[in-house]
């Protein structure tokens, strides 16, 4: 299912394994992100070191190629994933309160309602139906839009921009245009929420950190950057987990049967699906700030390092027989959400959405099945930064 032109970093086999062997020493490969070669880390312990040592492996010092200074400044503003402490810490601290376990728990009734609405809609449409459009993408999309305060009518344009933002088949010019469109839209949204605050994250952020005229206040560019980052992260991760997770469970009926007989097993199963699928192909590249070793491999100042999350998550040091899906496997310290200071901020939200959506889907449609059982018919997204499906036709 790989095809020429897909960066090796973004390639998977039919069991979703990366092309890189788990648990190997780092080696340099062609980068999908830049012209320079990239060290790829596939050892789980190495991965945890690289991701948690922001002093040696910096996101903030990554250079944006071929852009003028003003553009880079705008791209970096509010973009937590492109910053080191203390800049990163300042922004992260403003957001962590929005994603606490308790906070997300308070959203669960609304998430359940959204899931039920979409299941009802699927029933009305009738089989066969595309599970990506009507369920896997639709639910996280609505959840993150409501959380941020994006009006319902703007959602479709948003889904489209989020998908294009991570699409590496677009040329630089197109990607730049998508970035500009997203920022323009978010700018309008920030102004709207400033004038008419609502019960949403953006309004709370403006109220708490961008309306007092203090020197630590967020600029509009920062609010735009934060808003865009959260929207893309909210669209493109959970939705692909829901689609690929459903596909995976349908392909492993014995595993699905385990969960049908013991619904309390879902929390463990969701962690295993996170590990097994690792939808984010790679942690964003870090630049080495001073000569250092990863395991016993020497990397030099200025080198670029990335972690193949699917490879690290199948390292035997983390999970024995890691190529096998085992929904009873209690693996909790996988790196599907990353590790270190850039660990996914929305992890509690993603977990809550999956823990509500998966059981509800399989309960509502006990005979859920792929509309076309031919494995070659599955439409994977091939050149995107996050793995997924373009559609998943199902019957029930």
């Amino acid at each position, binding site marked *: 299912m790989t095809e020429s032109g897909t960066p090796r970093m973004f390639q998977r086999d039919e069991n979703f394994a990366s092309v890189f062997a788990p648990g190997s020493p780092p080696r340099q490969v062609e980068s999908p992100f830049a012209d320079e070669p990239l060290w790829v880390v596939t050892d789980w312990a190495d991965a945890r070191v690289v991701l948690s040592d922001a002093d040696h492996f910096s996101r903030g010092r990554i250079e944006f190629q071929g852009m003028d200074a003003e553009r880079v400044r705008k791209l970096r503003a509010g973009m937590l994933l492109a910053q080191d402490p203390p800049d990163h810490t300042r922004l992260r*601290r403003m957001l962590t309160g929005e994603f*606490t376990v308790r906070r997300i728990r308070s959203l669960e009734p609304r998430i359940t309602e959204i899931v039920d609405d979409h299941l009802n809609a699927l029933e009305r449409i009738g089989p066969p139906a595309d599970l990506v459009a009507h369920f896997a993408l639709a639910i996280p999309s609505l959840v993150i839009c409501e959380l941020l305060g994006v009006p319902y009518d703007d959602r479709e344009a948003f889904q489209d921009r989020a998908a294009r933002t991570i699409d590496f088949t677009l040329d630089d010019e197109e990607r730049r245009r998508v970035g500009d469109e997203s920022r323009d839209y978010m700018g309008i949204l920030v102004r709207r929420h400033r004038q008419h605050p609502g019960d949403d994250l953006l309004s709370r952020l403006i109220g708490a950190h961008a309306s007092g005229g203090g020197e630590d206040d967020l600029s509009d560019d920062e609010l735009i950057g934060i808003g865009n980052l959260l929207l893309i992260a909210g669209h493109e991760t959970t939705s692909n987990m829901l689609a690929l997770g459903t596909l995976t469970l349908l392909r492993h009926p014995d595993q699905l049967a385990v969960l049908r007989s013991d619904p309390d097993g879902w929390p463990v199963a969701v962690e295993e699906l996170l590990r097994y699928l690792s939808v984010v192909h790679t942690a964003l590249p870090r630049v080495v700030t001073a000569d250092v070793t990863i395991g016993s491999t020497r990397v030099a100042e200025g080198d670029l390092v990335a972690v193949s999350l699917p490879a690290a998550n199948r390292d035997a040091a983390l999970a024995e027989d890691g190529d096998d899906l085992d929904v009873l496997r209690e693996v*909790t310290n996988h790196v599907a*959400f990353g590790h*270190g*200071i850039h*660990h996914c901020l929305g*992890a509690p939200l993603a977990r809550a959405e999956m823990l509500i959506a998966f059981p509800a889907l399989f309960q509502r449609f006990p005979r859920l099945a792929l509309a076309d059982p031919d494995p070659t018919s599955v439409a994977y997204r091939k050149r995107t930064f996050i793995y997924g499906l373009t559609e998943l036709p199902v019957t029930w």
Partner: protein
Amino acid sequence: MTLEVDRYICVGAGNCVLAAPEVFDQDDDGLVQLLQTDPAADQQEAVRRAASRCPSGAILPD
């Protein structure tokens, strides 16, 4: 077991609350809060799991 947390390096991922809800909580800003500093024997495995899952190394069991 004595247990300390480093709120300065905490990144508010909430993994500890999931791993050991009787020992860890998050304040309104999402930062780790200890519900007990001397977890009972039956909590210690969960505490070690929480420490291993913590992305920023903010949980420090002895």
